[in-house]
Protein backbone atom coordinates (compact mmCIF):
# COMPACT_ATOMS: atom_id res chain seq x y z
CA UNK A 1 0.00 0.00 0.00
CA UNK A 2 1.29 3.44 -0.87
CA UNK A 3 1.54 6.06 1.85
CA UNK A 4 -1.12 8.58 0.95
CA UNK A 5 -0.15 12.25 0.84
CA UNK A 6 -2.14 14.26 3.36
CA UNK A 7 -3.26 17.74 2.41
CA UNK A 8 -4.25 19.55 5.56
CA UNK A 9 -6.90 22.19 4.90
CA UNK A 10 -8.31 22.55 8.38
CA UNK A 11 -5.99 25.15 9.88
CA UNK A 12 -8.93 26.92 11.50
CA UNK A 13 -9.58 23.80 13.60
CA UNK A 14 -6.01 23.41 14.77
CA UNK A 15 -2.47 23.68 13.47
CA UNK A 16 0.72 21.68 13.86
CA UNK A 17 3.29 22.98 16.29
CA UNK A 18 6.18 24.46 14.30
CA UNK A 19 9.58 22.88 14.82
CA UNK A 20 10.99 26.20 16.10
CA UNK A 21 8.16 26.36 18.62
CA UNK A 22 8.68 22.81 19.86
CA UNK A 23 12.39 23.50 20.11
CA UNK A 24 11.72 26.51 22.33
CA UNK A 25 9.43 24.43 24.54
CA UNK A 26 11.57 21.34 25.00
CA UNK A 27 13.96 22.50 27.74
CA UNK A 28 11.03 23.43 29.94
CA UNK A 29 9.72 19.89 30.20
CA UNK A 30 12.78 18.17 31.55
CA UNK A 31 15.58 20.52 32.60
CA UNK A 32 14.04 23.88 33.33
CA UNK A 33 11.01 22.29 34.88
CA UNK A 34 10.87 24.30 38.10
CA UNK A 35 7.73 25.87 39.44
CA UNK A 36 7.97 29.59 38.62
CA UNK A 37 6.80 30.34 42.15
CA UNK A 38 9.82 28.62 43.70
CA UNK A 39 12.29 30.76 45.59
CA UNK A 40 15.39 28.91 44.41
CA UNK A 41 17.44 29.90 41.41
CA UNK A 42 16.28 27.18 39.01
CA UNK A 43 12.82 28.73 39.25
CA UNK A 44 14.00 32.12 38.21
CA UNK A 45 14.71 30.76 34.72
CA UNK A 46 11.10 29.75 34.46
CA UNK A 47 9.86 32.94 35.97
CA UNK A 48 11.76 35.01 33.49
CA UNK A 49 10.69 32.75 30.60
CA UNK A 50 7.08 33.42 31.59
CA UNK A 51 7.75 37.14 31.99
CA UNK A 52 9.42 37.33 28.60
CA UNK A 53 6.56 35.43 26.95
CA UNK A 54 4.04 37.75 28.52
CA UNK A 55 5.91 40.80 27.36
CA UNK A 56 6.27 39.45 23.85
CA UNK A 57 2.61 38.59 23.57
CA UNK A 58 1.74 42.01 24.91
CA UNK A 59 3.61 43.65 22.04
CA UNK A 60 1.71 41.59 19.45
CA UNK A 61 -1.53 43.36 20.39
CA UNK A 62 -0.02 46.68 21.40
CA UNK A 63 -0.13 46.38 25.16
CA UNK A 64 2.07 45.89 28.20
CA UNK A 65 2.72 42.56 29.92
CA UNK A 66 0.62 43.14 33.00
CA UNK A 67 -2.57 43.03 30.91
CA UNK A 68 -1.92 39.54 29.56
CA UNK A 69 -3.29 36.60 31.56
CA UNK A 70 -2.48 33.08 30.44
CA UNK A 71 -5.32 30.55 30.33
CA UNK A 72 -5.80 26.99 29.05
CA UNK A 73 -7.13 28.11 25.66
CA UNK A 74 -9.67 30.13 23.73
CA UNK A 75 -12.72 28.61 25.39
CA UNK A 76 -11.50 29.35 28.88
CA UNK A 77 -10.62 32.91 27.87
CA UNK A 78 -14.13 33.47 26.46
CA UNK A 79 -15.79 31.94 29.50
CA UNK A 80 -13.68 33.95 31.87
CA UNK A 81 -14.18 37.26 30.11
CA UNK A 82 -17.93 36.93 29.87
CA UNK A 83 -18.82 35.24 33.16
CA UNK A 84 -16.47 37.25 35.32
CA UNK A 85 -17.48 40.54 33.71
CA UNK A 86 -21.13 39.64 34.14
CA UNK A 87 -20.48 39.04 37.80
CA UNK A 88 -18.29 42.08 38.39
CA UNK A 89 -20.67 44.54 36.70
CA UNK A 90 -23.93 42.98 37.94
CA UNK A 91 -24.68 46.07 39.96
CA UNK A 92 -24.66 48.19 36.84
CA UNK A 93 -26.97 45.86 34.94
CA UNK A 94 -27.56 42.42 33.56
CA UNK A 95 -27.71 43.00 29.82
CA UNK A 96 -25.14 41.62 27.39
CA UNK A 97 -24.89 42.12 23.64
CA UNK A 98 -23.34 39.56 21.36
CA UNK A 99 -23.99 38.18 17.87
CA UNK A 100 -25.63 35.14 16.38
CA UNK A 101 -22.40 33.96 14.79
CA UNK A 102 -20.12 33.72 17.81
CA UNK A 103 -18.20 30.57 18.62
CA UNK A 104 -20.00 28.22 21.00
CA UNK A 105 -17.57 29.18 23.75
CA UNK A 106 -19.26 32.59 23.69
CA UNK A 107 -22.79 31.52 22.74
CA UNK A 108 -23.15 28.75 25.28
CA UNK A 109 -21.67 30.95 27.95
CA UNK A 110 -24.25 33.61 27.15
CA UNK A 111 -27.02 31.02 27.20
CA UNK A 112 -25.78 29.89 30.59
CA UNK A 113 -25.93 33.47 31.82
CA UNK A 114 -29.49 33.76 30.54
CA UNK A 115 -30.37 30.89 32.86
CA UNK A 116 -28.74 32.88 35.65
CA UNK A 117 -31.01 35.83 35.06
CA UNK A 118 -29.02 37.86 32.58
CA UNK A 119 -30.57 39.16 29.38
CA UNK A 120 -28.67 38.68 26.15
CA UNK A 121 -29.24 40.36 22.78
CA UNK A 122 -27.97 38.27 19.89
CA UNK A 123 -27.33 40.64 17.01
CA UNK A 124 -28.18 39.64 13.46
CA UNK A 125 -25.59 39.71 10.74
CA UNK A 126 -26.04 40.44 7.06
CA UNK A 127 -25.77 37.85 4.30
CA UNK A 128 -21.99 38.10 4.49
CA UNK A 129 -21.88 37.74 8.22
CA UNK A 130 -21.22 41.35 9.12
CA UNK A 131 -22.70 42.96 12.20
CA UNK A 132 -24.86 46.05 11.65
CA UNK A 133 -23.32 48.89 13.64
CA UNK A 134 -26.58 50.77 13.88
CA UNK A 135 -28.40 47.77 15.25
CA UNK A 136 -25.57 47.33 17.70
CA UNK A 137 -25.80 50.91 18.89
CA UNK A 138 -29.58 50.72 19.20
CA UNK A 139 -29.25 47.57 21.30
CA UNK A 140 -27.22 49.36 23.97
CA UNK A 141 -29.29 50.12 27.06
CA UNK A 142 -28.48 51.75 30.37
CA UNK A 143 -28.10 48.29 31.90
CA UNK A 144 -25.82 46.94 29.16
CA UNK A 145 -22.58 45.81 30.74
CA UNK A 146 -20.78 43.95 28.00
CA UNK A 147 -20.51 43.75 24.22
CA UNK A 148 -18.84 40.60 22.91
CA UNK A 149 -18.27 40.45 19.15
CA UNK A 150 -15.77 38.12 17.56
CA UNK A 151 -12.87 39.60 15.61
CA UNK A 152 -13.27 37.16 12.74
CA UNK A 153 -15.61 34.25 12.32
CA UNK A 154 -14.15 30.75 12.47
CA UNK A 155 -16.47 29.25 9.87
CA UNK A 156 -17.01 31.77 7.12
CA UNK A 157 -13.95 33.91 7.81
CA UNK A 158 -15.78 37.22 7.94
CA UNK A 159 -13.89 39.97 9.73
CA UNK A 160 -16.05 42.24 11.87
CA UNK A 161 -15.67 46.05 12.10
CA UNK A 162 -13.91 45.79 15.43
CA UNK A 163 -12.48 49.31 15.64
CA UNK A 164 -15.94 50.77 14.96
CA UNK A 165 -17.56 48.53 17.54
CA UNK A 166 -14.84 49.47 20.03
CA UNK A 167 -15.56 53.12 19.40
CA UNK A 168 -19.29 52.68 19.98
CA UNK A 169 -18.68 50.65 23.12
CA UNK A 170 -16.35 53.28 24.47
CA UNK A 171 -18.75 56.11 23.70
CA UNK A 172 -21.44 54.34 25.66
CA UNK A 173 -19.13 53.30 28.47
CA UNK A 174 -19.75 49.60 27.86
CA UNK A 175 -17.06 46.96 28.20
CA UNK A 176 -15.98 45.41 24.90
CA UNK A 177 -14.71 41.85 24.60
CA UNK A 178 -13.63 40.25 21.34
CA UNK A 179 -12.93 36.60 20.61
CA UNK A 180 -9.84 36.96 18.42
CA UNK A 181 -8.98 33.26 18.38
CA UNK A 182 -9.06 33.17 14.58
CA UNK A 183 -7.81 36.68 13.92
CA UNK A 184 -4.83 36.70 16.24
CA UNK A 185 -1.56 37.00 14.28
CA UNK A 186 -3.51 36.89 10.99
CA UNK A 187 -4.78 40.46 11.19
CA UNK A 188 -3.13 43.45 12.83
CA UNK A 189 -4.56 44.08 16.28
CA UNK A 190 -4.09 47.14 18.45
CA UNK A 191 -6.18 46.95 21.58
CA UNK A 192 -5.80 50.63 22.36
CA UNK A 193 -6.56 52.00 18.91
CA UNK A 194 -9.50 49.60 18.63
CA UNK A 195 -10.78 50.25 22.16
CA UNK A 196 -10.79 46.58 23.04
CA UNK A 197 -11.16 45.92 26.78
CA UNK A 198 -10.76 42.15 26.67
CA UNK A 199 -9.48 39.84 23.97
CA UNK A 200 -9.29 36.04 23.76
CA UNK A 201 -6.65 34.08 21.85
CA UNK A 202 -5.52 30.46 21.69
CA UNK A 203 -2.12 28.85 21.07
CA UNK A 204 -3.03 25.91 18.88
CA UNK A 205 -4.59 28.06 16.17
CA UNK A 206 -1.27 29.78 15.41
CA UNK A 207 1.11 26.82 15.27
CA UNK A 208 1.58 26.89 19.00
CA UNK A 209 0.68 24.15 21.47
CA UNK A 210 -2.80 23.06 22.53
CA UNK A 211 -3.97 23.80 26.05
CA UNK A 212 -2.71 27.36 26.27
CA UNK A 213 -4.37 30.68 25.53
CA UNK A 214 -4.54 34.15 26.91
CA UNK A 215 -7.05 36.73 27.90
CA UNK A 216 -6.08 40.36 27.53
CA UNK A 217 -7.73 42.44 30.22
CA UNK A 218 -7.31 46.18 30.03
CA UNK A 219 -5.95 47.67 33.24
CA UNK A 220 -8.86 49.01 35.24
CA UNK A 221 -11.43 46.47 34.09
CA UNK A 222 -12.56 45.06 37.37
CA UNK A 223 -13.25 41.46 36.50
CA UNK A 224 -11.82 39.00 38.96
CA UNK A 225 -10.69 35.40 39.09
CA UNK A 226 -12.23 32.60 37.10
CA UNK A 227 -10.05 29.93 38.67
CA UNK A 228 -9.52 30.68 42.36
CA UNK A 229 -6.51 29.48 44.31
CA UNK A 230 -2.83 30.35 44.18
CA UNK A 231 -1.48 33.79 43.38
CA UNK A 232 -0.46 33.03 39.80
CA UNK A 233 -1.34 35.48 37.00
CA UNK A 234 -1.53 38.35 39.47
CA UNK A 235 -3.88 36.26 41.62
CA UNK A 236 -6.49 36.25 38.86
CA UNK A 237 -6.01 32.75 37.47
CA UNK A 238 -4.75 30.07 39.81
CA UNK A 239 -2.79 27.01 38.82
CA UNK A 240 0.87 26.20 38.34
CA UNK A 241 1.93 27.97 35.15
CA UNK A 242 2.12 25.80 32.04
CA UNK A 243 5.63 27.01 31.33
CA UNK A 244 6.36 24.99 28.17
CA UNK A 245 2.93 25.95 26.83
CA UNK A 246 3.48 29.62 27.57
CA UNK A 247 6.95 29.61 26.04
CA UNK A 248 5.68 27.80 22.94
CA UNK A 249 2.70 30.10 22.56
CA UNK A 250 4.95 33.15 22.72
CA UNK A 251 7.39 31.73 20.20
CA UNK A 252 4.53 30.89 17.83
CA UNK A 253 3.08 34.37 18.26
CA UNK A 254 6.48 35.89 17.61
CA UNK A 255 6.98 33.92 14.39
CA UNK A 256 3.47 34.56 13.13
CA UNK A 257 3.60 38.26 13.89
CA UNK A 258 7.04 38.71 12.40
CA UNK A 259 5.93 37.06 9.16
CA UNK A 260 2.32 38.19 9.17
CA UNK A 261 2.55 40.06 5.89
CA UNK A 262 4.43 37.38 4.01
CA UNK A 263 2.39 34.49 5.36
CA UNK A 264 -0.99 36.06 4.85
CA UNK A 265 -0.04 37.24 1.36
CA UNK A 266 0.73 33.63 0.45
CA UNK A 267 -2.48 32.43 2.03
CA UNK A 268 -4.54 35.07 0.25
CA UNK A 269 -3.15 34.03 -3.08
CA UNK A 270 -4.01 30.39 -2.57
CA UNK A 271 -7.38 31.28 -1.08
CA UNK A 272 -8.33 33.51 -3.99
CA UNK A 273 -7.17 30.95 -6.50
CA UNK A 274 -9.35 28.28 -4.92
CA UNK A 275 -12.35 30.54 -4.67
CA UNK A 276 -11.99 31.58 -8.31
CA UNK A 277 -11.65 28.03 -9.56
CA UNK A 278 -14.54 26.68 -7.52
CA UNK A 279 -16.81 29.48 -8.64
CA UNK A 280 -15.82 28.94 -12.26
CA UNK A 281 -15.88 25.17 -12.34
CA UNK A 282 -18.46 23.91 -9.86
CA UNK A 283 -22.05 24.93 -10.53
CA UNK A 284 -24.51 25.76 -7.77
CA UNK A 285 -21.74 26.67 -5.37
CA UNK A 286 -22.09 29.68 -3.09
CA UNK A 287 -19.20 31.43 -1.41
CA UNK A 288 -20.01 32.04 2.25
CA UNK A 289 -18.65 35.03 4.09
CA UNK A 290 -17.55 38.41 2.92
CA UNK A 291 -15.38 38.49 -0.17
CA UNK A 292 -13.19 41.37 1.02
CA UNK A 293 -13.44 41.44 4.78
CA UNK A 294 -12.25 37.90 5.09
CA UNK A 295 -9.60 35.93 6.93
CA UNK A 296 -6.66 35.39 4.59
CA UNK A 297 -6.83 31.62 4.89
CA UNK A 298 -10.55 30.90 4.72
CA UNK A 299 -12.49 29.31 1.84
CA UNK A 300 -16.08 28.41 2.66
CA UNK A 301 -18.68 27.21 0.16
CA UNK A 302 -22.09 25.67 0.14
CA UNK A 303 -22.66 23.14 -2.60
CA UNK A 304 -26.35 22.75 -3.28
CA UNK A 305 -28.04 19.33 -3.27
CA UNK A 306 -25.36 17.60 -1.28
CA UNK A 307 -24.60 17.16 2.37
CA UNK A 308 -21.40 18.18 4.11
CA UNK A 309 -20.41 15.08 6.01
CA UNK A 310 -20.41 12.81 2.98
CA UNK A 311 -18.32 15.41 1.19
CA UNK A 312 -15.81 15.41 4.02
CA UNK A 313 -15.51 11.64 4.13
CA UNK A 314 -14.90 11.42 0.42
CA UNK A 315 -12.34 14.22 0.59
CA UNK A 316 -10.66 12.34 3.42
CA UNK A 317 -10.53 9.33 1.11
CA UNK A 318 -8.36 11.48 -1.13
CA UNK A 319 -6.14 12.56 1.74
CA UNK A 320 -7.75 15.97 2.15
CA UNK A 321 -8.54 17.21 5.67
CA UNK A 322 -11.39 19.69 5.70
CA UNK A 323 -14.37 20.54 7.83
CA UNK A 324 -17.98 21.51 7.68
CA UNK A 325 -19.24 23.89 10.30
CA UNK A 326 -16.92 24.15 13.25
CA UNK A 327 -14.93 21.17 14.41
CA UNK A 328 -16.24 21.08 17.91
CA UNK A 329 -19.82 20.70 16.81
CA UNK A 330 -19.32 17.70 14.59
CA UNK A 331 -21.40 15.06 16.24
CA UNK A 332 -24.23 17.53 16.22
CA UNK A 333 -26.89 17.10 13.56
CA UNK A 334 -27.91 20.71 13.27
CA UNK A 335 -26.48 22.71 10.45
CA UNK A 336 -24.10 25.45 11.42
CA UNK A 337 -25.70 28.30 13.37
CA UNK A 338 -23.47 30.66 11.45
CA UNK A 339 -24.80 29.62 8.06
CA UNK A 340 -28.36 29.89 9.32
CA UNK A 341 -27.59 33.34 10.68
CA UNK A 342 -26.43 34.57 7.28
CA UNK A 343 -29.82 33.49 5.96
CA UNK A 344 -29.17 30.16 4.29
CA UNK A 345 -32.02 27.66 4.33
CA UNK A 346 -31.34 24.45 6.24
CA UNK A 347 -30.87 22.22 3.21
CA UNK A 348 -28.24 24.50 1.76
CA UNK A 349 -26.54 25.06 5.10
CA UNK A 350 -26.12 21.30 5.35
CA UNK A 351 -23.91 21.28 2.29
CA UNK A 352 -21.11 23.48 3.53
CA UNK A 353 -17.39 22.98 3.30
CA UNK A 354 -14.64 24.91 5.02
CA UNK A 355 -11.10 24.79 3.66
CA UNK A 356 -8.56 26.73 5.68
CA UNK A 357 -5.07 26.94 4.26
CA UNK A 358 -1.74 27.81 5.80
CA UNK A 359 1.29 29.64 4.46
CA UNK A 360 2.67 26.23 3.55
CA UNK A 361 -0.22 25.31 1.28
CA UNK A 362 0.99 25.21 -2.30
CA UNK A 363 -0.86 26.01 -5.50
CA UNK A 364 -0.52 22.34 -6.43
CA UNK A 365 -2.24 21.35 -3.22
CA UNK A 366 -4.95 23.87 -3.96
CA UNK A 367 -5.45 22.55 -7.47
CA UNK A 368 -5.54 18.96 -6.29
CA UNK A 369 -8.21 19.86 -3.75
CA UNK A 370 -10.36 21.68 -6.28
CA UNK A 371 -10.01 18.84 -8.80
CA UNK A 372 -11.03 16.31 -6.17
CA UNK A 373 -13.86 18.48 -5.04
CA UNK A 374 -15.30 18.75 -8.57
CA UNK A 375 -15.33 15.02 -8.90
CA UNK A 376 -16.84 14.36 -5.48
CA UNK A 377 -19.50 17.01 -5.77
CA UNK A 378 -20.57 15.56 -9.13
CA UNK A 379 -20.63 12.06 -7.67
CA UNK A 380 -22.74 13.08 -4.71
CA UNK A 381 -25.12 15.04 -6.87
CA UNK A 382 -25.60 11.97 -9.00
CA UNK A 383 -26.75 10.25 -5.86
CA UNK A 384 -28.92 13.11 -4.64
CA UNK A 385 -32.71 13.05 -4.91
CA UNK A 386 -32.70 16.82 -4.52
CA UNK A 387 -30.50 17.20 -7.56
CA UNK A 388 -32.70 14.75 -9.47
CA UNK A 389 -35.75 16.85 -8.70
CA UNK A 390 -33.96 20.03 -9.59
CA UNK A 391 -32.76 18.71 -12.93
CA UNK A 392 -36.14 17.26 -13.82
CA UNK A 393 -37.87 20.47 -12.87
CA UNK A 394 -35.50 22.49 -15.03
CA UNK A 395 -35.99 20.03 -17.90
CA UNK A 396 -39.73 20.48 -17.41
CA UNK A 397 -39.93 16.82 -16.62
CA UNK A 398 -43.34 15.63 -15.55
CA UNK A 399 -42.28 13.35 -12.71
CA UNK A 400 -41.33 15.36 -9.72
CA UNK A 401 -42.63 14.31 -6.36
Amino acid sequence: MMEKKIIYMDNAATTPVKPEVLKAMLPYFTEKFGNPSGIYSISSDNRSAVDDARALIGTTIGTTPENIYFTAGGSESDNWAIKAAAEAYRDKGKHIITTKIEHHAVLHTCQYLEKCGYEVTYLDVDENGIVDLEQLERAIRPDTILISVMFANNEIGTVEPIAEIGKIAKEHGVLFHTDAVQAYTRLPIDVDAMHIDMLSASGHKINGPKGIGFLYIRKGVKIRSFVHGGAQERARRAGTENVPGIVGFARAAELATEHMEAYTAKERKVRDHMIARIEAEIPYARLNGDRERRLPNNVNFCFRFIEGESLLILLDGKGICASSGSACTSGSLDPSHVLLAIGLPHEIAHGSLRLTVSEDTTMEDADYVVDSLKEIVAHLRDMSPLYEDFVKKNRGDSYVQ
Partner: protein
Amino acid sequence: MYSEKVMDHFQNPRNVGEIADASGVGTVGNAKCGDIMRMYLDIDENRIIRDCKFKTFGCGAAVATSSMATELVRGKTVEEAMQVTNRAVMEALDGLPPVKVHCSLLAEEAIHAALWDYAEKNGIKIEGLKKPKEDIGEEEIEEEY
Protein backbone atom coordinates in the same frame (compact mmCIF):
# COMPACT_ATOMS: atom_id res chain seq x y z
CA MET B 1 -16.36 6.56 13.77
CA TYR B 2 -17.97 4.30 11.14
CA SER B 3 -17.53 0.54 10.80
CA GLU B 4 -15.74 -0.81 7.76
CA LYS B 5 -19.03 -2.07 6.35
CA VAL B 6 -20.53 1.40 6.61
CA MET B 7 -17.51 2.93 4.94
CA ASP B 8 -17.66 0.34 2.18
CA HIS B 9 -21.35 0.97 1.50
CA PHE B 10 -20.77 4.70 1.60
CA GLN B 11 -17.77 4.73 -0.66
CA ASN B 12 -19.12 2.08 -3.02
CA PRO B 13 -22.85 2.39 -2.70
CA ARG B 14 -24.84 -0.44 -4.31
CA ASN B 15 -27.86 0.28 -6.46
CA VAL B 16 -27.61 4.03 -6.80
CA GLY B 17 -29.94 5.40 -9.43
CA GLU B 18 -33.49 5.61 -10.66
CA ILE B 19 -35.89 3.05 -12.11
CA ALA B 20 -37.94 4.33 -15.01
CA ASP B 21 -41.61 3.45 -14.55
CA ALA B 22 -40.94 2.01 -11.11
CA SER B 23 -43.63 -0.08 -9.39
CA GLY B 24 -43.27 2.12 -6.36
CA VAL B 25 -41.28 5.20 -5.33
CA GLY B 26 -40.97 6.56 -1.84
CA THR B 27 -39.19 9.65 -0.52
CA VAL B 28 -38.71 10.30 3.18
CA GLY B 29 -36.84 12.64 5.45
CA ASN B 30 -36.42 16.31 4.85
CA ALA B 31 -33.65 18.55 3.75
CA LYS B 32 -33.97 20.63 6.87
CA CYS B 33 -32.66 17.75 8.94
CA GLY B 34 -30.06 16.96 6.37
CA ASP B 35 -31.32 13.59 5.14
CA ILE B 36 -33.57 12.67 2.23
CA MET B 37 -33.89 9.14 0.90
CA ARG B 38 -35.74 8.06 -2.19
CA MET B 39 -36.31 4.37 -2.97
CA TYR B 40 -37.41 2.96 -6.33
CA LEU B 41 -38.89 -0.57 -6.40
CA ASP B 42 -39.44 -2.79 -9.41
CA ILE B 43 -41.88 -5.50 -8.27
CA ASP B 44 -43.00 -8.39 -10.45
CA GLU B 45 -46.40 -10.06 -10.62
CA ASN B 46 -45.45 -12.50 -7.83
CA ARG B 47 -44.85 -9.55 -5.58
CA ILE B 48 -41.11 -10.20 -5.69
CA ILE B 49 -38.81 -7.20 -5.64
CA ARG B 50 -36.86 -7.64 -8.83
CA ASP B 51 -34.88 -4.48 -8.52
CA CYS B 52 -34.41 -1.66 -6.05
CA LYS B 53 -32.54 1.60 -6.48
CA PHE B 54 -31.99 4.66 -4.30
CA LYS B 55 -30.95 8.24 -4.23
CA THR B 56 -29.93 9.84 -0.98
CA PHE B 57 -29.02 13.29 0.21
CA GLY B 58 -27.33 12.91 3.54
CA CYS B 59 -24.39 11.90 5.60
CA GLY B 60 -22.23 8.81 5.22
CA ALA B 61 -24.57 6.76 7.36
CA ALA B 62 -27.58 7.84 5.34
CA VAL B 63 -25.98 6.69 2.11
CA ALA B 64 -24.73 3.44 3.63
CA THR B 65 -28.06 2.51 5.20
CA SER B 66 -29.84 3.24 1.89
CA SER B 67 -27.36 1.08 0.04
CA MET B 68 -27.66 -1.77 2.53
CA ALA B 69 -31.45 -1.53 2.58
CA THR B 70 -31.62 -1.95 -1.20
CA GLU B 71 -29.39 -5.01 -0.93
CA LEU B 72 -31.55 -6.49 1.78
CA VAL B 73 -34.86 -6.15 -0.05
CA ARG B 74 -33.75 -7.21 -3.52
CA GLY B 75 -35.15 -10.60 -4.41
CA LYS B 76 -37.48 -10.63 -1.44
CA THR B 77 -41.25 -10.70 -1.59
CA VAL B 78 -43.13 -7.62 -0.53
CA GLU B 79 -44.07 -9.40 2.71
CA GLU B 80 -40.50 -10.38 3.41
CA ALA B 81 -39.38 -6.84 2.66
CA MET B 82 -41.69 -5.67 5.43
CA GLN B 83 -39.47 -7.58 7.84
CA VAL B 84 -36.41 -5.55 6.93
CA THR B 85 -36.32 -3.34 10.01
CA ASN B 86 -33.91 -0.58 10.87
CA ARG B 87 -32.32 -2.99 13.32
CA ALA B 88 -31.69 -5.48 10.51
CA VAL B 89 -30.06 -2.74 8.43
CA MET B 90 -27.87 -1.67 11.32
CA GLU B 91 -26.80 -5.20 12.11
CA ALA B 92 -25.94 -5.84 8.49
CA LEU B 93 -23.69 -2.76 8.68
CA ASP B 94 -22.00 -3.87 11.91
CA GLY B 95 -23.65 -1.06 13.80
CA LEU B 96 -23.91 2.71 13.64
CA PRO B 97 -22.79 5.48 16.00
CA PRO B 98 -25.62 6.50 18.34
CA VAL B 99 -26.14 9.88 16.65
CA LYS B 100 -26.65 8.07 13.35
CA VAL B 101 -29.28 5.52 14.37
CA HIS B 102 -32.00 7.70 12.89
CA CYS B 103 -30.52 7.07 9.42
CA SER B 104 -31.43 3.41 9.68
CA LEU B 105 -34.97 4.36 10.67
CA LEU B 106 -35.08 6.54 7.61
CA ALA B 107 -34.04 3.61 5.40
CA GLU B 108 -36.81 1.44 6.85
CA GLU B 109 -39.29 4.22 6.28
CA ALA B 110 -38.10 4.75 2.71
CA ILE B 111 -38.81 1.11 1.86
CA HIS B 112 -42.20 1.35 3.50
CA ALA B 113 -42.99 4.53 1.60
CA ALA B 114 -42.09 2.90 -1.74
CA LEU B 115 -44.19 -0.13 -0.84
CA TRP B 116 -47.09 2.15 0.08
CA ASP B 117 -46.82 3.83 -3.30
CA TYR B 118 -46.82 0.40 -4.98
CA ALA B 119 -49.84 -0.72 -2.92
CA GLU B 120 -51.77 2.46 -3.69
CA LYS B 121 -51.04 2.25 -7.41
CA ASN B 122 -52.17 -1.36 -7.50
CA GLY B 123 -55.04 -1.00 -5.07
CA ILE B 124 -53.74 -3.71 -2.77
CA LYS B 125 -53.14 -3.87 0.97
CA ILE B 126 -49.89 -5.00 2.54
CA GLU B 127 -50.12 -6.48 6.03
CA GLY B 128 -48.69 -4.13 8.65
CA LEU B 129 -47.91 -1.28 6.27
CA LYS B 130 -48.91 2.18 7.41
CA LYS B 131 -49.10 5.42 5.47
CA PRO B 132 -45.64 6.98 5.63
CA LYS B 133 -45.09 9.86 8.01
CA GLU B 134 -44.34 13.14 6.38
CA ASP B 135 -41.35 13.74 8.54
CA ILE B 136 -39.40 11.19 10.43
CA GLY B 137 -36.30 10.97 12.45
CA GLU B 138 -36.56 14.24 14.29
CA GLU B 139 -37.62 12.85 17.63
CA GLU B 140 -34.56 10.62 17.68
CA ILE B 141 -32.19 13.55 17.50
CA GLU B 142 -31.22 14.26 21.01
CA GLU B 143 -27.87 15.38 22.15
CA GLU B 144 -26.38 14.49 25.44
CA TYR B 145 -25.74 17.66 27.32
